[in-house]
């Protein structure tokens, strides 16, 4: 190998274990220096991008897997076809009723200021992409929800909610928080705790066919979304009791 070939290979693969490459570097001080400078550049480049991984990310990766596994297991207990049709029919009816209520009782999307709208849009986008799986163990859901809350807001706790469904930790884009749901007598209610600046005051609105409530709480906002007002009120009062701050 001559110096030109050596330098070509050094630029392509400075850690090459090619015999003639190693032999040449042992015999030619200039080429040894050359490849040394390239290795140094690589090492400097790599360390210029060193970052600390968020302390809770590894735990979240692990927890996500456990939650997914639970869902996979739960899905084995399949919902029978007739029940599926019944659920679809109920859903369509609820959507129609909620849409009607939303447009009459809670105003329209246009009346919502941008802060609230951003929160609601974030939660709805998330709900559409990450549907809550309707089979869950309350003990497990409570324990996992508290684990996640602890990683976001250590002083915040959730008292046991027997109707809590929390299927998995999932991406929430720009937001950090918890997305879960409560089974109430009047249907499923989704709620999200979003960490960040609190909005100035409680706000109810109709949004994308849901009745929604954005509520400022310590360390962030609580967003509750339901197909019916009654279910929303019930969930809100349950969450009022369940969420507390350990200070």
């Amino acid at each position, binding site marked *: 190998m001559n110096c*030109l070939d050596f*330098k*070509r290979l050094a*630029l*392509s*693969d*400075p850690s090459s274990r090619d015999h003639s490459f190693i032999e040449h570097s042992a015999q030619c001080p200039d080429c040894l220096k050359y490849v040394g*400078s*390239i290795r140094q*550049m*690589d*090492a*400097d*480049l*790599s*360390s*210029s*991008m*060193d*970052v*600390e*991984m*968020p302390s809770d*990310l*590894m735990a*979240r*990766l*692990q927890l*996500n*897997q456990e939650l*997914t*596994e639970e869902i996979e297991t739960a899905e084995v207990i399949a919902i029978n076809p007739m029940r599926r049709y019944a659920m679809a029919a109920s859903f369509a009816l609820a959507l129609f009723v909620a849409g009607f209520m939303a447009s009459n009782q809670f105003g329209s999307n246009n009346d919502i200021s941008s802060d609230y709208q951003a929160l609601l849009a974030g939660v709805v986008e998330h709900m559409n992409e990450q549907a809550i799986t309707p089979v869950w163990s309350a003990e497990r859901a409570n324990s996992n929800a508290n684990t996640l809350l602890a990683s976001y807001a250590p002083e915040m706790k959730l008292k046991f909610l027997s109707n809590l469904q929390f299927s998995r*930790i*999932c*991406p*929430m*884009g*720009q937001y*950090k928080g918890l997305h879960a749901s409560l089974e109430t007598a009047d249907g499923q209610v989704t709620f999200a705790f979003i960490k960040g600046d609190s909005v100035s005051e409680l706000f109810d609105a109709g949004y994308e066919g849901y009745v929604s409530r954005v509520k400022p709480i310590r360390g962030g906002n609580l967003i509750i979304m339901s197909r019916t007002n009654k279910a929303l009120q019930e969930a809100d009062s349950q969450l009022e009791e369940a969420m507390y701050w350990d200070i």
Partner: protein
Amino acid sequence: MTDLSNENDQEQVNYSMMDKKRKYALLIEAHSKDLYKYALWLCKDKNMAEDVMQEAFLRAWKSLDSLREAKAAKGWLFTIFRREHARQFERKQFQYKDVESMDTIEDSSHMGYDDRPEAFALRNALKKLPEEYREPLEMQVLGGFSCDEIAGILDISSSAVMTRLFRARKKMRQILGHESAPQLGVVGE
């Protein structure tokens, strides 16, 4: 750079005999730090990097049975990550900052990068490379992949990878002032 001793330990693990959960735990332990570094560099946003990583690991879990060899794990995981990144990029393009306009000192410290001028200059030099040269260099320097592994991930020939790496480093050296003018012949792609 990649911890080679750890990598060698990993390569000796027999994945096919292993419980799926244990396999997944090993995958997180061995590769999440490197992947996060790569993810943050690619996404330019901490939240997005975490999101894409979580989704990628979830996809990895779902298809973990197809992974038989520990030595293939890193390349396999990075491939899943790149696909997920492409998918999310398509969906949430509006949230991304243009690579060319990125990396002010403020951005660097916000993301937790070394904000010394030398480090800043290196990152900016990398960004100035055309994407086709930058990508294999990122994989080799950040991911510790060999030319053959990069070829597999990018689905191009090894010789094409060698050429791109050659040009990438040559250009980097010129930008950084280590090499004033082209002196070497270019290997044909």
